């Protein structure tokens, strides 16, 4: 028993590790397998799914397996921990299961010219990251995997990176979900600061504490920003349609069945922690409803079938979000059920559209008509998925839609205005019904375009469109079969996946049975109303299109996004130009004015007692004269800086005075070096001076000189105080003692400074010599540069 437990715990780790390792090995395996590399990805996904199935026993027993390592920073609540409760496990099965189907499909979908190995490597990387999101037991781990899904999504959207649109879409998706991810990180940090843990199970157990915490609202808002951006909720929905530039298998997998659902997955994860608060209900449900309506309305405006599906996905995600906001048991059941149902039928629809695109070379619904004649099997499969999406009985979509209506109607007892929710629910569902019919009836029935019957001209050399091979049909068929199976006999899947998932989302086991027929109730009446209204609108769809054209809103989220991005790029460009303006003066001002201010503040805080030394060393008359001369000479350099020759000579005097001063302060080596260097410097100065213009009128105005003098005096005074503060501090010098003691026995010299330079800090001296060498080479290069030019003349 114990051995079995450990085995299943290791399996949990392997669920994520297998796709990851397979992805890393893909480039090598690809060389062996060639174009069959897709089967490698299929195998990896199957293994991941199988490992999950092997865990089913402990999941169903309500004793979820946990695997954790004390890494990377357990002291800060950061450890890699995985667990498979009903919710994560069920979602993981969807990821690995649909992943398997997608890999089979993609193996047949991609043309031979595409870089297959790269495609499947990205896909497996994503799968691993997504499984990490759903199995994480710790919010920090979840966030890391979350960001990895954003990154792999970026790679996959931009897979055809030579296309401008693909780059634009990939960039947009990364920016929006990435910004939301940052908000989520901030939310998790706040949770840790507030609760001292990021462990999801512990937080669930202490849900009351979280809700009572004064930071509850900021935490909620930050986490929800992550959720809404990831799941394309209004007003962040606009990245998803542009993500459709990805190859269709990617759209089906990431941007419909799994990655965009990470947001609603997290809603389900934190549902038992946050539900019940008014803020949770109002924010989540309102955003969900707005998204549901906007998405369904937008779907009808699109002529590109993939864009239509993108908007319909937005709408369905809105529905799920809306339900989680209600925070009731029934709503949790309906939302969780719908997540699974939507994954099945929407992935099926994407794959069907992919087949149509593959065969005809177009996705324009105005051109595509009557394809059932040419592709009967595809038509049937598409019909099943589309009707499931519309919510027609005997299919899975109907069951979750009924639960949705039931939940909406359940609250109407609270007052007449609560009828608003079922009314909007029906509105959204009617629009869903209409676009689902457009996908199925519109594309596969009606008069066939004669161009399509031959070759569309853009098709990929298939001649007349026909049903594709089994490799592309089988995945869709399996998904359609699931829609039917769940729609007619929901029992088995309900017990296997749904029961444990809902129990985890709700926080405790929930008693329910999903029934196809539960009497002539309000939900059924609303379903019938939906179907009739939907049929009428579909029949009159050209009028709807007219209305939509008239209502067209020229100013959308995309306009704001584009303007904001442009503004950001221009703004930072201007800021950089302003700061990096190539003027030494402004650099010095920018750097040193703050130094003066900050040092003044620090010295002011320390107080006079810390600046003024308690006692001064005695001042010999000779030293007073020396320092006095130094001050006078320094000021003289400034005073005569217009008369260059004089200035250079006075500078030499300053250097000489400093050398003598070194000598006085027990530093004979410094005095020697300084004197030598000073002599060479003055010679260099004179050499250059000889070449420069002799008369130099002042370039700066009086005002400029005054301002500069102000800064210079301020800087001088502050530095003067710093020197005093150093003297006042009187720090002990253990390092000096070490060198004194070690100089003779370990360095073999009595002159400690020399021993330090050539022995203890020999590498510093090497660095110093290198700097000199570089300066010399630079100077030489500068001179040579001119020589060559002269030679050419």
């Amino acid at each position, binding site marked *: 028993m114990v051995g079995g437990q450990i085995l299943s715990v290791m399996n949990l780790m392997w669920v994520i590790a297998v796709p990851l390792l397979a992805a890393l090995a893909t480039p090598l395996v690809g060389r062996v397998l060639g174009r069959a590399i897709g089967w490698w990805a299929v195998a990896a996904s199957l293994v991941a799914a199988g490992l999950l199935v092997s865990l089913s026993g402990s999941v169903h027993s309500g004793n979820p397996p946990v695997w954790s390592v004390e890494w990377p920073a357990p002291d800060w609540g950061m450890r890699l921990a995985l667990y498979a409760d009903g919710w994560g496990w069920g979602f993981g099965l969807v990821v690995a299961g649909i992943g398997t189907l997608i890999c089979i499909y993609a193996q047949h979908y991609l043309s031979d010219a595409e870089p297959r190995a790269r495609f499947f490597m990205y896909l497996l990387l994503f799968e691993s990251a997504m499984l990490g999101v759903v199995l994480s037991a710790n919010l920090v781990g979840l966030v890391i995997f979350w960001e990895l899904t954003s990154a792999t999504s970026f790679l996959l959207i931009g897979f055809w990176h030579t296309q401008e649109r693909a780059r634009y879409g990939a960039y947009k998706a990364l920016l929006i979900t990435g910004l939301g991810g940052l908000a989520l990180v901030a939310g998790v940090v706040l949770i840790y600061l507030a609760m001292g843990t990021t462990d999801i199970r512990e937080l669930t157990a202490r849900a009351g504490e979280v809700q009572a915490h004064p930071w509850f609202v900021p935490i909620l808002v930050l986490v929800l920003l992550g959720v809404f951006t990831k799941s394309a909720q209004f007003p962040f929905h606009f990245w998803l349609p542009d993500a459709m530039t990805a190859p269709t298998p990617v759209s089906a997998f990431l941007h419909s069945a799994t990655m965009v659902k990470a947001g609603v997955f997290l809603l389900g994860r934190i549902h038992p922690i946050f539900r019940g608060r008014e803020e949770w209900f109002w924010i989540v449900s309102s955003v969900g409803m707005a998204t549901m309506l906007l998405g369904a309305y937008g779907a009808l405006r699109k002529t590109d079938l993939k864009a239509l599906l993108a908007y319909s996905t937005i709408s369905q995600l809105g529905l799920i979000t809306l339900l989680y906001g209600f925070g009731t048991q029934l709503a949790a059941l309906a939302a969780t059920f719908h997540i699974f149902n939507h994954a099945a039928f929407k992935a099926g629809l994407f794959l069907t559209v992919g087949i149509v695109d593959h065969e005809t070379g177009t996705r324009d619904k105005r051109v595509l008509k009557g394809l059932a004649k040419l592709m009967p099997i595809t038509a049937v499969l598409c019909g099943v998925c589309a009707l499931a999406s519309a919510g027609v009985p005997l299919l899975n979509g109907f069951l979750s839609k009924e639960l949705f209506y039931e939940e909406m109607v359940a609250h109407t007892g609270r007052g007449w205005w609560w009828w608003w929710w079922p009314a909007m629910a029906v509105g959204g569902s009617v629009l869903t019904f209409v676009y689902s019919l457009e996908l199925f009836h519109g594309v596969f029935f009606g008069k066939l375009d004669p161009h399509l019957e031959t070759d569309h001209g853009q098709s990929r050399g298939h001649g007349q469109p026909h049903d594709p091979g089994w490799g592309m049909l089988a995945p869709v068929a399996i998904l359609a079969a699931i829609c039917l199976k769940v729609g007619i006999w929901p029992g088995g899947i309900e017990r296997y996946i749904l029961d444990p998932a809902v129990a985890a989302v709700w926080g405790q086991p929930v008693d329910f049975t999903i029934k196809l027929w539960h009497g002539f109730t309000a939900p059924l009446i609303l379903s019938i109303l939906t179907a009739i209204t939907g049929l009428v609108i579909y029949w009159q769809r050209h009028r709807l299109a007219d209305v939509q054209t008239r209502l067209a809103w020229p100013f959308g989220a995309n306009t704001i996004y584009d303007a904001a991005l442009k503004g950001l790029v221009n703004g930072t460009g201007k800021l950089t130009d302003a700061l990096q303006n*190539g*003027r030494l*003066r402004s650099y010095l001002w920018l750097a*040193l004015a703050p130094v003066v201010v900050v040092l003044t503040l620090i010295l002011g805080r320390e107080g006079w007692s810390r600046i003024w030394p308690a006692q*001064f*060393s005695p001042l010999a008359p000779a*030293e007073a004269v020396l*320092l*006095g001369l*130094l*001050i006078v000479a*320094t*000021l003289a*350099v*400034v005073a005569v*800086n217009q008369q*260059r020759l004089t*200035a250079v000579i006075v*500078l030499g005097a300053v250097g000489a005075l*400093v050398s003598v001063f070194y000598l*006085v*302060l*027990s530093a004979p080596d*410094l005095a020697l*070096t*300084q004197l030598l*260097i000073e002599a060479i*410097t003055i010679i260099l*100065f004179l050499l*250059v*001076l000889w*070449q*420069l*213009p002799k008369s130099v009128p002042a*370039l*700066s105005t009086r005002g400029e000189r005054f301002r500069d003098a102000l800064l*210079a005096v301020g*800087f*001088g005074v*502050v*530095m*003067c105080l710093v*020197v005093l503060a150093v*003297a006042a501090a009187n720090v002990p*010098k253990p390092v*000096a003692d070490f060198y*004194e003691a070690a*100089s*003779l026995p370990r360095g073999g010299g*009595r002159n*400690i*400074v020399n021993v330090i*330079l050539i022995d203890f*800090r020999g590498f510093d001296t090497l660095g110093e010599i290198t700097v*000199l060498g570089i300066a*010399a080479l*630079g*100077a030489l290069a*500068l*001179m040579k540069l001119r020589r060559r030019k002269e030679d050419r003349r």
Partner: protein
Amino acid sequence: MELLMAIAIGTLFGAGLYLCLRRRTLQVVLGFALLGHAVNLLILNMGGIRHGQPPLVNPAAAGYADPLVQALILTAIVIGFGVTAFLLVLAYRAYQETGSDEVNSPRDKHP
């Protein structure tokens, strides 16, 4: 002693900065040289003030000046010279190329 030394170092800093803010290359190099002296004296000051106690191993001596700061300054003097020399050559070459010894970038004059 410390007070006068502080004033001298402060004067070197202020004068160096003022010259670095001028518009001609030679003045900037002059200012840079002054700043070098200022920094070296500041470091020396950190080691404390000693008279007649060079940093030698001599058991008979009453004490010794901090050798570490002196080692640092020795390095700094040499590197300061290297940079000054390079700046001078740069100033000279810039004048030859542009016919002007102004510090500011051409962008300044031709916006």
